Structure formats: C-alpha cells, structure tokens
C-alpha cells in the first residue's frame, strides 16, 4: 500500500464557474462516465477522485467541485489554495456566465494565491454545447477572451453528449503536471500541507491551544 502510493502523482484540480453551468455534471461525467440528469446543487464544495494514466504516470486527480452561487464565495476560497490547476466553466447558452469569467479568474488568483500569477494553468470550458439554438456564446468570442487573458486554452464540451469531456480533463491534468514538475509526492503530507492553509481549521487550533481547560459555561 505504502509503496504504491509513492509512485502516484496527486493533483488538485479546482472547477469554478457560475451556478448551473454544469460543473457537477462535467465532473460526474468524467469520474463515473455517466450523465446525471438529476443531481443536487453543490453546497459549499464537494470532491471526487479519478485515477488516470498520463504520459505513463499514474495520476490521482482530486477534483474539487465548488458551489456557484455568489454568496458561497467566502467559503469557496478556502478550497482554492494549493490547487495545481483550475477549470473555469461557463454555460454557452447563458451569456452572463461567460461575462463572469473575469470575476472568477480574478477571485481564484486572489484567494488561491498561486506563485505564478501569469502562468497558472487555467482551462476555460464552454459547457452545454449540445444546446444549439443559434444563440450560444460563439467560439470566436470565447477564444478572444482567452487570448486577452494570458493565452488561456479554451475547449467546448457537453456533459450530456459526452463531447470532449475526457479531453478537457486530460488537458487540465497535463497542464497541472507540467506546472507541478514534482513527480512523487506522498498523499498525507501533501494533503495536510494543503489543508493547513484553510483558515477555519488553523484558527480553531490556535484557540484551543490557548484555552485548553475551559469546560463549562454555566
């Protein structure tokens, strides 16, 4: 068990984007190769694992699904930390979700605080390509936005038809690996390291150390 672990690469993939654009569907499609017609809205954050072999290496992708509604942001940011790559999803049939790409990207850079702001691996994913009623966000516009924002890569997917979902995630993971360059990391270490940055836990721990004896209040 221990030996096996050492050979794997662990990547933290964070998926962000407006509410209802299909983040959960995409992830679910990728991790369980099924399309969920009915699923529940993500509250806070959820995460799932997928083990893939890329360039001969076994990668365990830890995919974080975050809540889209704006007021969840103050929680969501604690999950950005330690991310190796980030997918920003928008709904091609919903123009406002495209307009919000800016905000999502900035929020991620601000709170995820990766070291290389300019080169951090993002992938822009335009989901729901199957809903073709002529009013979809055009590929040209999306490409333009990506070009304007540091030559990001763009891909169009459909979680429903399973169009390019695999491809999108593979790309994302590859990008993350490129960045990572550290190939052998043990999970527990990395995990605890990552999670130490989450505010909530750290503060409580501090408080506890200060007043360990307080037991009763009334």
């Amino acid at each position, binding site marked *: 068990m221990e030996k096996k672990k050492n050979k794997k690469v662990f990547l933290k993939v964070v998926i962000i984007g407006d*509410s*209802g654009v299909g983040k959960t569907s995409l992830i679910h499609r990728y991790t369980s190769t099924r399309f969920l017609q*009915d*699923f*529940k*809205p*993500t*509250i*806070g*954050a*959820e*995460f799932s*694992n997928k083990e893939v072999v890329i360039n001969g290496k076994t990668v365990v992708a*830890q995919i974080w699904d975050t*809540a*889209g*509604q*704006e*007021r*969840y*942001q*103050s*929680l969501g*940011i*604690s*999950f950005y930390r330690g991310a190796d790559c980030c997918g920003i999803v928008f709904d091609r049939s919903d*123009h*406002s979700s495209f*307009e*919000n790409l*800016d*905000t999502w990207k*900035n*929020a991620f850079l*601000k*709170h995820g605080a990766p070291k290389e702001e300019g080169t951090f691996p993002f992938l822009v994913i335009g989901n729901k390509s199957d809903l073709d009623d002529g009013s979809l966000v055009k590929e040209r516009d999306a490409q333009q936005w990506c070009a304007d924002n540091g030559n990001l890569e763009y891909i169009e997917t459909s979680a429903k038809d399973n169009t390019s979902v695999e491809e999108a995630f593979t790309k994302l993971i590859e990008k993350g690996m490129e960045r990572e360059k550290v190939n052998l990391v043990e*999970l*527990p270490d990395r*995990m*605890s*390291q*990552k*999670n130490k940055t*989450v*505010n*909530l*836990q750290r*503060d*409580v*721990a501090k*408080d*506890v150390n200060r007043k360990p004896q307080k*037991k*009763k*209040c*009334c």
Partner: protein
Amino acid sequence: MEMMLRRNYYQVEKRDRKQPEMSFQEKKEETKKTKKRYRKATLSYCSNGEEDFDEHSDNKLSAISNVSKSFVQERNLEIIENVYTSKKKAKASFISNGGKRQGLLGMIKNKFFRGNKVKRPVSEYSNKSESNYVQKMLVILRKAQKHGIMTEKEKDQMAKLIFKNGGFPKAYRPQLWTLASGSERLKRNNFGYYSIQPHDEDERKSNDDNPELTEKQDNTSDDDICRPLLDSYPEMPSPYKDQIMVDLNRTFIENNGSIDSKDFNKKLFRILLSYSKRNSNVGYCQGMNYLAGMVVRVIHNEETAFWTLCSLFENILPLDYFCLMTEILVDQKVLMMLIQKKQKKLFKHLKSHGVDFPIITFQWFVCCLSCTLDQEVAETVWDLLFLQGTSAIFWASLAILDIMSPDLLKQTEFNDMYTTMDTKPKEMINEPEIMLKHYQKFMRVKPCMISKLRKKFREGIINDQRQVWMNNSRAVCPSSTDSSVLKRVKILNKFFFLNKAIRANKKQELHFELDNVDDRLSCSGMKCNFNWPLCLYDFTIRTRICNFFIFRVSKPVRIIPEYFSDDLNLRREEKFEKLFFFIPFENKDVTIYDNKSERRVKRIESAQIYEKNETEDNEKYIHITEDEQLLMTREVHPCVYNGFEDHFHKMFDTEDNILYMNWTVHTCYGFELQNIQSIEAFVNEILSLKEIEALKSKDYQEESKNMMNREYRNFSHYRLNTLLRERPLKEEKLKRFGSFNFPRHGLDQQIWQSALEVASQSIIISGSSDISSDSDDE
C-alpha cells in the same frame, strides 16, 4: 352516515368562504360565527339520528369523532377540532354518568354551550393502540392547537417524550412542526398575506372519505387561488427566479417518488419565490431549496408550509444564515471546537490526516441535515430542531460523528474518510432511535455554551468576510469610518435594483419594463402605491427601507415606538439632536416578539431609534442591548406620511448614521452583482442620459440648475437635488469620487466623475426611457 355530517360541514365551509375581504375585527367575529355554524352542523346531524341512540350511541359517537377528525386533518381547522374534543368530552361524561340516558343531542348541547368541565383520564379518549407517550404528545399538541403555538415548556416536555418514545409518530408530524414553529399562529395573524382561497371553489365530493385524495383535490385548483405575495411587484421580476428554477428539479429527486413530483415542484417554486419577495435581502440561497423541500414533504398545506419556513429562517435559525452566510461559518468554528472537546480522538485522527471538517459539515448546516440523513431520521432531527432550536443541529452533527467514529478511526486515506462522512450517515443511521440515543449524549453541551462560542468566533469571521468581499471587487461592503465608501454604497444601492432587474429580465421585455419606470417611480405628491416597492426613496436607499429586515445593533439604543402618531414636526424639533437612526415604518403598536424566549428577538413596525442615554430610563422607550436583535417589517410605504420627505432628505444628507455604516447591521448592502461589468454598464447608462451633456458644458452650474428645476419640479426628490447642490462641497465631492478604487477600464476619468456625480444626484431614477435603450445592448 358520515356523509351526512360531512355534507353539513361542507355547506358551512362554503358559506364561510363567501366573505371575501375582512378586517381583523370582522374576521374575529366571523370566526366566532363559523364556530357556531359548525356546531349547529354537528348538532343537526345528531338530532336527525336520535332515535337509534340506545343501541348505537357508542358507535355513533366514535363515528362522529372520526368524521370530524379526518375533517380536521384535511383542513387543519381549529374550529372542528373544538367540536371534536367536545364530542369526546360528551362521551366521557356519558360514561361517567354510568350510561344514564340523557339524549345525545342534549348531552352535546350541554357540553357545547354550558362548557361543563369533565375531568377524565387521558386513556379514555385516545386510541388504545398508541403508546402512552404518544398519547401524552397528542395531549400537548391539542393544547397548543388552541393558541397556534407551543410554549417553551410544552416544547421541553415534547422533546423529552420524543426521547422516551424513540421518535415521533409520523402521522402527527405536520401538526408538531406547525405548532412548534408557531407557523399556525403566523398564518392566522397574516390572513391573506400568502394566499387567499377563491370563494367559488368547486364543490367537493362529499363522499370522499380518503383524506389524501381530498388533499390532492385541494391542489388541482391551484390557478384559482390568489397569491398576493407571489404576484406582488410584477414590475420587478425576482432576480432569483432563474436560480430557483435551476435548483428545483434537483431537490430531493431520490425520494420524491411517493409525491407527485410535478405538484411538489410547483409548490416548492411558489414558496421559495414568495420568500425571496418577502425578504429581498436574503432572496434565495442554494440550500434553501432543501429546507423548503423538507417542509413541503411533511406539511402538505402550502400556506402552512410557507409560514413554517418563514419561522425557521427568521426565528429558529440564527440571523444571516443565508444572506452573507456569516453565521454558518461561525457555526462551523463552533462545531470544530465542540468536536475537539467532545471527541478528542476522532478530531486528532482526522486532523492528522488532513480532513477539513467544514468541507462536509458546511453542507450539514446549510441543509440542516436534511440531505445528509435518511428521511425518517432527518425528520426526527427536525422535530427536535423545531423544539430545541439550533442547538439541535450541533447535537445531531456530533451524534453523527460519534456513530461513524469507529469507521473513521480505522481509515487512513483522506478520500475514504471524506466519502464515509459524506455518504455513510444515510446507511448507518437508519433508525431514529439510533440517532436519538447518541443525540442525547451530547445534550450536555448547553445552548448557552454554543451561543458563547458563537459570540467568540463571530468577530473573526466578519473580519475575514469583509476582507473577501472588499477585495473581491464585485461586492461592496460599507466600512465603518470612511465616508467615501459610504457614498459609494449609497450610489451602488441605487444601482442594485436596476442591475438585478436587467439580469433577471435580460431575455424578456426589458424595454417595456424600463420604459414605464418613469411613471412608476414618480412619487409626486407623495402618493406612492403601497404595493409598489420601488418609489424614489426605495431606489435610493432600497436596502435600508426594504420590506423586511433584521439587524443587530452595535451599541445599546432606545426606541420610541409609534413615531408617527404624534405631531411629527414637533417631535422632530425636539428630538432631532439625538437622532440615531430613523425607521419610517408604519404607525402601529410595537409588538415585542418572542420576548420571553432566550432568542430575544423583538419585532417592531415603526420606530425611531436613539442612542441610549444612560440617565434616561423612560417607559415609553424600548431599550435594546447589543445581544438583542430587531426584526422590522414594513407594510405601508413610508412616503405616504407627510413629512417623510424631510426626514428622508435629512437622512440622506447627514452622515451620522452609524447603523447604516456599521457592518454589524445585518442587512446586506450589495453582496452580489456589483462586478466591474455592471458598474461599467451603469456608467454607460448614465452617459446615455442627456443630462450628461449639461454636466460637460462650461456653463454647467447655470444650465443644470435651470434644467433640473424645470424638469424635476414634479419629482419629490427635487429638494434632494437642491440640498446636494447647495452644499459647498462640490470640489470635495468630486475628489472623493475620484478616489474610488473602481477599475475604470479605459473610461475617461472626467466622464467617470461626472457620471458618478449624476448618480449621486439620483438623476438616473427619473432619467427617462433612455435607460432602457442602451442597457440591454451593452
């Protein structure tokens, strides 16, 4: 024979519906009359069958009881409940009289109209198949039914009974929830607020003995029911509608096989949308759909479900659970602390493996455990939530962790532990008894301890949040001292509505809506439509005078109720120096809400708030300390009061309003949608106004003065403009606007400043139809 009795009831009910709109007094009298009618209906039935009294009296009594009982369940009618219990009294007295022949009619009459009290053992009128505990529960429920709400003592008793019995009988759960949450009372007190049944509703089939069927029939006439709240403000489409629609089909999909899911979704939609209109500050937050779903699954009556939900959001859960979610984050910290104290081993184990509790427990709290647990168990937890308050969620969460801890302690992989915590509770806790057993263990953690911990963590969370929102550039929150930020908030508040409306309406006829906005916004002559939430004043300080909001005060204040009842001007002269905050609400008695309970929430409807002076201790003031919370409602638009205008201008003009500036005011000022794009769009809109030309020209002062005088004489905010212009702060103001940190995106700075200038003078409001033509294209 049940049919006959039923028919009698239906007739009464039908007649009862024919009174369309009644004042409260009339309603009260009407209820009295209705009660009498129902009694008569029962009596007339009884008298019809008096001949065969001897042989079948017992059967008959139970039959009557059954009919009225099922009728009660169907209609949730308190009235019949009385009849029903009286009948039992009658039976009891019959038995205690040793079966002495008295005549059924006379007997019932006797009990009804003379009200003799017959003491009898509980067992005599309860179904013998039910356990002793359940019988006791029912007694409590019946007592509470009269008042529409359970007292704290009754709640305690009920909770104890639930523990003894190992759960609560499912059949009575709707009653328990409505009574424990007080929604029954809310519903009665707010007649016609949520829905009004049509008077000409189809006649029901009287032979329908199955209560479930009748229930369904109730819902088929959905379209006939008038829903004032839901249909209010058609001009202002709810910005949350889309979000609710998206979430609707993903609420409790796994379980709603038993419920007609279409019907379920419809109800859910109406309830959620109505709530977003009731409290526009909270609106809709993902997760509320689960709470509503939970309530609707149990309480089939839509209106009752709505009020239960209101009570849950407003009275039971802490404030700001769903607005900026401050309290939920606070609760996460509290829970962490409790886990650390009560389950040291588990805490250490999980922590050493890097499991972050809030990832999982956050969901638990947002949904109040409704999606984490098996339905039956979750409902039991909710029983306790209604009875014991929010502490119930903490206890239940601790119980879940306790149950799962053997499993969790064995695991060493982060993923496994996460999956266990996420999915296992449903499988492992399949019986309410298991939950209750562990739940009781943790009840030693007293509620006051929880509230102490909350208080301890709150400040830190608020600071963190402020950081997030401030840095995020898409949201603006007021800071306590910087007056320029205050101005900015004021301006953005104006924009708040407009932007939301545009977003919500982007695919529809925005042009049409905004073309007419001019007419609707004019409050000339200070006569606003009561139901129209958007007069000029709303537009300027919308978040301050919303229909409904709650806040916490930052320091002790005192309140003068019924502010408008006396001579307004006199009062103002006299008191203005000390004015702290002014709430132009309706002239009504201040009702202190839930004063005895520990929650200490006060509900007021109109008031003026002053800073508390320690020497003063006058009885006409209500004194409010930091721990208390104010809950305010507005039912009539403030600008119908003469003199409101002056107040408004003073309020807008003076910057001494600490409540407004202080973060501890728990209303949200602009947590959403104020991103760069929207600000840009906003500026573009202003630029498209013709007034901007005037601003740019050299003779700006002269021209604008003339123009504004001419054009806005009719608008009541004319004076506001004058006030603003008369202040010799023009240069300074511009400077202040210039110092904002808005990203300007290549906009000419001067134009930007001018735009803000215009905005600050609320010109956009009356800015004619130009607003619409550009806004959609941008």
